[in-house]
């Protein structure tokens, strides 16, 4: 069973992304949206801990923040978000 974890809180002010990364499995994926895309601004080992995961990023949240999708992640629009939610067995949004 695979899970798509969705996080929208900034990792600089909130523990959700850290907790999520602790239990993310190799079959699982992470979708960053909203302020969670500021995770791209993490430095050092905090950033490298993201790079070896299956990471998707909602493109509009990159665009609005003047951030670019790194090569180790995949940008998605809403139709692709819908497809992701189908591809994975379940979606766990960190509300």
């Amino acid at each position, binding site marked *: 069973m695979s899970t798509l974890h969705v996080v929208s809180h900034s990792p600089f002010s909130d523990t959700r992304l850290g907790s999520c990364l602790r239990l993310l499995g190799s079959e699982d994926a992470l979708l960053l949206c*909203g302020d969670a895309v500021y995770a791209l601004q993490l430095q050092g080992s905090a950033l490298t801990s993201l790079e070896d995961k299956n990471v998707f990023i909602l493109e509009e949240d990159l665009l609005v923040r003047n951030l670019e999708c790194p090569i180790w992640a995949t940008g998605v*629009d*809403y*139709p692709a978000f*819908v497809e992701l939610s*189908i591809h994975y067995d379940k979606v766990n*949004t960190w509300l």
Partner: protein
Amino acid sequence: MKFAIALYSAAHAPSSRRALRFAEAALAGGHEIVRLFFYQDGVHSASSNIVTPQDEQDIAQQWTTFISQHQLDGVVCIAAALRRGVLNEDEAARYQRPGVNLKAPWELSGLGQLHDAIQSADRLICFGGP
């Protein structure tokens, strides 16, 4: 694919807009939405008393239009709504409150409707927070 979509944030939260755009994309992709369930602060996304500045997008209005247009089942959790002052005509009369801010196409109902939606859908997708 059958989706159950649950929203936990008010209309001014980016996640309310995100939920709406996801729901639109799901229908556009030929999928079905068995129910939209509004819980916790999500009940504010159903309020008909929201006045958005004219030069900003009116997400509350867009939710109402979306649900009406596609004749979707938009359910607002009654316990969460009462606690936050989101009342339909019946509840305003029952508790003798002066304002009604929940109208069709929305319905007030219990958490059983969330569980029922989870059982009948292939996927549950929740939206909330920022």
